């Protein structure tokens, strides 16, 4: 086991945390790392793909345990759809394993580069959150090594308190070693996608609310730069799985090569270089032009069929897109607001961003429902994710503005997601999680990790 001092970053390239990186390949090395950490007085955090926008997988000055070496799919039952995998397995590996056999992961993030360990720790959701809940609801069982050295197996029935706390627990109670998930049956490699425009925020929210029950997935794009009567305008995509009879030749559409999005544009131009050409547009004027063009194009209502791979992993279309934001990187602000208060809260938020001349360049909306996990971010309502470019000049204003956003969201009964927001304060977290949930989490933390070996920058920010 080698530890090497390395500069680690978050996905948005907006934070740097020099840490001792240890690569693990076998579960035994996790306990060894805990021993080492205790001996030399350092803390440990597990790190998967490092795709979080904030400090969830960073541990400045401490040990970052790179889990990507533990990436075997150990059991796959194609008749029941049960799959068992190590925590370093990515969603990409997972769907490529199960899709050709007629299955699909029930919950996926907007990128397929994330690891299962990371997905469970933050309890990710997809565009079907209103229907399928977060990924945790599809976990049949997992095993985990605690900092005490004990190994525990958890399911909704067995060690249920740990099951509902470790999923969503930000990797602060133990480190996953094996995860068993239930996949969802599909009857085609394609989905039917409906796309339609929405003229303003009221239309946007109503459209998500009314149409969600008719689809398996629903997601909105919001032109967060548009103001006045068009504030909140955008485009909704609703998608549903095909029934058995709808695809004449499922064997063909389910082939892996039909799912994989080409990494070249027009067959020749590498998409990984696209961000160089995007960066000149990542400013208020350039992006207004792009949004207006995109909105004009969305005015045409249309229906089309799209592969699962292409529909879900929008963020992977342009690799390294986040680099287009430049040196200061980017951050994401995602708020989860109850359906009754969403319109008023988001109107206030978007207007405030215009007033500060700091509009979000990308707004994405989704429909959600609550779940039973301890550190849940879900509400019966909607989420709006906003991307902001960080520069030395806008830092102070942006910081003040996001604090105002937090106040608006909290007043509206909203919540935040620990994989995304980087500025959420301990006080804000206490308000939306509630003192009881935090006390419960800390109690479990004490039981699983009496010597405080598991800590991340995120943990210190929220619970420190």
């Amino acid at each position, binding site marked *: 086991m080698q530890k*090497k*001092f*390395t*500069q680690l970053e*978050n996905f*948005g390239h*907006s*934070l*740097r*945390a*020099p*840490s001792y990186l240890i690569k693990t390949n076998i579960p035994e090395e996790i306990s060894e790392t805990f021993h080492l950490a205790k001996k*030399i*007085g*350092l*803390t440990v955090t597990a790190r998967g793909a490092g795709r979080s926008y*904030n*400090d969830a997988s960073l541990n*400045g*000055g*401490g040990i970052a345990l790179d889990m990507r070496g533990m990436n075997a799919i150990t059991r796959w039952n194609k008749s029941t759809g049960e799959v068992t995998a190590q925590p370093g397995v990515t969603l990409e590996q997972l769907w490529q394993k199960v899709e050709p056999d007629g299955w699909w992961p029930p919950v996926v993030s907007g990128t397929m580069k994330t690891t299962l360990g990371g997905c469970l720790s933050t309890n990710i959701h997809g565009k079907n959150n209103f229907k399928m809940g977060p990924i945790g609801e599809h976990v049949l069982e997992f095993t985990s090594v605690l900092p005490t050295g004990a190994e525990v197996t958890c399911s909704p029935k067995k060690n249920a308190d740990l099951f509902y706390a470790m999923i969503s627990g930000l990797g602060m109670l133990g480190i996953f070693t094996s995860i068993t998930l239930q996949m969802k049956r599909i009857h085609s490699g394609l989905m039917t996608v409906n796309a339609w425009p929405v003229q303003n925020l009221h239309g946007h929210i109503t459209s998500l609310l009314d149409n969600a029950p008719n689809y398996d997935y629903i997601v909105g794009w919001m032109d967060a730069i548009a103001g006045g009567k068009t504030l909140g305008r955008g485009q909704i995509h609703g998608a549903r799985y095909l029934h058995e009879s709808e695809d004449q030749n499922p064997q063909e559409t389910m082939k892996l090569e039909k799912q994989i999005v080409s990494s070249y544009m027009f067959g020749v131009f590498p998409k990984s270089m696209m961000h160089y050409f995007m960066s000149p547009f990542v400013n208020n004027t350039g992006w207004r032009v792009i949004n207006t063009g995109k909105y004009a194009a969305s005015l045409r209502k249309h229906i089309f069929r799209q592969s699962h791979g292409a529909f879900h992993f929008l963020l992977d279309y342009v690799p390294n897109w986040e680099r287009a934001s430049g040196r*200061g*990187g980017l*951050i994401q602000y995602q708020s989860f607001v109850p359906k009754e208060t969403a319109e008023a809260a988001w109107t206030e938020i978007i207007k405030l961003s215009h007033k500060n001349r700091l509009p979000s360049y990308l707004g994405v909306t989704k429909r959600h429902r609550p779940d039973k996990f301890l550190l849940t971010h879900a509400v019966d309502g909607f989420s709006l994710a906003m991307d902001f470019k*960080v520069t030395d000049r806008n*830092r*102070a204003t*942006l*910081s003040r503005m*996001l604090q105002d956003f937090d106040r608006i969201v909290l007043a509206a009964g909203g919540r935040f997601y620990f994989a995304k927001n*980087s*500025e959420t304060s301990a006080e804000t977290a206490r308000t939306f999680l509630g003192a009881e949930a935090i006390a419960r989490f800390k109690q479990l933390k004490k039981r699983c990790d009496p010597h405080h070996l598991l800590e991340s*920058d995120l943990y*210190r*920010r929220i619970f*420190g």
Partner: protein
Amino acid sequence: MSDSPKPAQATPLNPRRRGIIVGASDGIGAALARKLAKEGYTLALVARSKDKLNALSTEINSSVNDTRTLAYVHDVSNYAEVPALLSKIVADLGGLDLVVFMAGVNFPPGLNNYNFEGDRQMIEVNVIGAMAWLNPVSEMFQNAKAGQIVGISSVAGDRGRIGNPGYNTSKAALTTYLEALRNRLTRHGVNVLTVKPGFVKTEMMKAAQGSTPFAIEPEKAADDIYKAMSKRKQLIYTASIWRWIMLVIQYIPSVIFRRMSF
């Protein structure tokens, strides 16, 4: 470590540069600590004197109403202690962007005296102490491919003079050591700044014999160092006039220099 609460976590919108000042308790070290804290750094202050260190740390923290400094008592010649202390500091700060090696002692032996004990201490603190700290720091920064090292040498290292052979030697060695680190580390994205102060109105200056021309306040030296750090310079004299003075002194032929009385 002092009992101050932990410094706040850095976020993308409230980034924090993190630095260590070895030899922070008074003189230029204390002035630079005040300056860097004001500029937003979170600092580990390392020095021998617990009382001075805690007083400085408390003074800075209350002036900015935030935990910007943590205090660590350490004697630079206690080399074996360095690796564990460095690792603890980096963990407490949550990372590391800057290390300033400021620790230095000066024992002028007197014109006709030879003082091995004093010379030895100057080498032990000014040179070996720097190596004990900056070797592991360099390794960290080289691996992280980022960072900044500031070493406080002296104009005294530019020539060997009759007044203080041991001090001249220690500072010449430090200057060369820093130059070598610079040549190693620049290619890894690490900046190494050598600072050569002339006379600065500190405790150490009181030990200097004779006149002290162009003496500056420690605050002025700290401002100069901060400016040079920000521009990622490689070498500065403070006050800047010493660059020209030392240029002349360096070119005085030995046949004349041997006969001079300074």
